């Protein structure tokens, strides 16, 4: 039984090689290019949906299903056309058993690819972020966005209520993200009207010549760079 399982595994590995060969001819790509492309197509991630990448405009999962059908076809061919019982690995298997064997082999390969992808991501993270404190990590990922929040912390009294002004559209995806990140980094400086207190400072971001946008009754307290400044109320 154990020998048979190993033989089936060996059979599937040969089938995989054959399928990759056909694909490499079809896509005019080398084996290594093909494997790298498949790996890349299976490594995309997002918190709402992990999309499947494409190879020559074909969804990688459709290729995986084609591969599975190819293996099932090979198994069925062996079952029906190989008459020598010693070499017919699938003689006593029903179609559902063959489907199950193929399905578990395919998911085994996918698990292997996932483990490789996860390990590479973990290694990349370790190379980039090991030994850094949280602030340094944010600095590395977000750059000026994070430095600006630290700058604002230095400029304003703790627990100020901060308004935000910009010539950019803060409802656009890019600037909304920047807004939320700033609000998160700045708290307990309140930028999202949590405490419902009167605004006593403004930050002006993503604006050329930002000083022109300083509201009346406020004065410049700090310039982070030419596009981002902080202003504080002068009179109560």
């Amino acid at each position, binding site marked *: 039984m*154990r020998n048979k399982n190993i033989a089936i595994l060996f059979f599937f590995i040969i089938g995989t090689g054959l399928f990759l060969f056909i694909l490499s001819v079809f896509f005019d790509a080398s084996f290594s290019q093909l494997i790298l492309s498949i790996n890349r*197509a*299976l490594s*995309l*991630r997002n*918190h*709402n*949906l*992990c*999309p*499947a*990448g494409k190879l020559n405009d074909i*969804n*990688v*999962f*459709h290729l*995986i*299903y084609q591969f*599975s059908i190819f293996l099932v076809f090979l198994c069925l061919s062996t079952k029906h056309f190989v008459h020598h019982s010693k070499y017919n690995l699938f003689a006593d298997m029903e179609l*559902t058993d063959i*489907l*199950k064997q193929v*399905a*578990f082999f*395919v*998911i*085994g390969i*996918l*698990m292997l690819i*996932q*483990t490789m992808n*996860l*390990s590479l*991501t*973990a290694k990349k*993270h*370790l190379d*980039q*972020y*090991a030994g850094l*404190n*949280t602030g340094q*990590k*944010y600095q590395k*990922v977000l750059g000026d966005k994070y430095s600006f929040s630290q700058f604002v912390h230095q400029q304003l009294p703790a627990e100020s209520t901060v308004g935000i002004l910009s010539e950019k559209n803060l409802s656009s995806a890019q600037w909304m*993200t920047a807004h*939320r*990140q700033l*609000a*998160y980094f700045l*708290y*307990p400086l309140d930028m*999202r*009207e*949590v*405490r*419902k207190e009167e605004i006593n400072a403004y930050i002006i971001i993503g604006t050329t010549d930002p000083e022109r946008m300083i509201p009346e009754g406020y004065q410049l307290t700090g310039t982070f760079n030419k596009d981002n400044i902080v202003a504080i109320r002068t009179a109560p």
Partner: protein
Amino acid sequence: MMIAIILLPIFFGLSILFVLKLDKLLNIPILLALSFALGTGVITQWMLILGILQIPFSSTSINLSLSILSLILLVVRLYSKEKLCEGALYKDLKPGTKNIHTIILLLFLFATIVCIFIISMTIPVLTWDAVATHAFNAKIFYYEKSLTYLPNMPHYTYPCHIPFILSWAAFTQGEWDSQSIKIIFPLMFLSFVFIKYYFLRLLTDRNSALIGTGLLCSSFFFVYHATICYRDFTMCFYIYTCLASLCLWSKFQKTSFLVLAGLFAGFVSFIKLEGTGYAVILALILFVMLILSKTKNLKKKIISFFTFTLISWGIAAIYHCYKYFIVFNSITDRSDKGDFDLNHIQINFSLELFQRLTVLAQKYLTNLFSTNNWSTVWPIFFICLLKLKRKNISPEMLILFLFIALHTVIYTLGYTLTQHFIWLKTDTALSRSILHIFPIIPALIAMILSGGQEHKANGLKR
């Protein structure tokens, strides 16, 4: 103080498991895993109660009071003579390393767990929902130490389990650190893997249990969510643990499992808005199971049903009463609040329904079979269904099938008949709602593979 974030929930959870006398039934790994899950749920409920009573949040007010309560529970257990549960259910539940498949699967699980810990603990809170809502709200709770500003916080109608547990982690270690508070999620993943394996092991054979656990971790979406501060991972964790407890109750008829299921169903209602819906679905499933049961008399059935619903709906009621009577009353201008709208379903019967159904079917099929979310777990599930014979469907499998069916029906109605169609159209919610039931699929595959029958060889006792 990171060690306290690990040990305190385990201590709080263990005290409850001891009172339920589950230590007599379950072995140490599953007790620890369960106690972590239970402990985190208890902490956030306790924080809610403290908040309602206007007692300021602090490490002392949360951890000291819960520690005293846990000690009291342990003392109660020591002096309790009532025998709730007798007879260990376990006997040699370890995966073993006898064959190459087992070793490969164990290596895969080990590598996945290690990678998740590394990825999660090298990148601080960064993803959209976390920064915009959950971690932001947690930071407010940490700095303000109360629920005072809840009505002004982003998504104030959302239940607070994740913000509370993140702020609790910060209170426990004495500072707000966007990196170390994330330890909760990989720990939850670890706990989930143990619970998944040991529950399946109690219901199936060794290989099937390991395959079920391996298949769970083969989902890229599931694994990715264990590294970010989103609510859906915790949601699927608690739902699965609740269903697993119900399955164990159905199989072994120990009241402690029903109480455990009730607790988790209650905790589910405190994670997301739809959690309350899940608590109702779970009660409905129990109701059906009790109707179908031929071994219990009517009195026992009524007691079982009320044990579960009183616990789960009771927990849900604490938050909902607070929200409706205190939070909503403090909102003066409801017209401007999009959040308020989430609590009011607008049903729309029109010809558009057919178009929506087509979109829904297309989105479901694409999501299940053509994305990198679930690996090939769903096709395997459907292949395994071909092998499933009606006589092999155990009551435990029926519980899981019922949950999937009700989940699908309710989401289909929700997406097609209500304003929530928008979430389907924009691909923002479907994967996450499927994630809630995803862990059930590998469990069902494992049960089908094991023949859906009790394995006498593994030494389980009825």
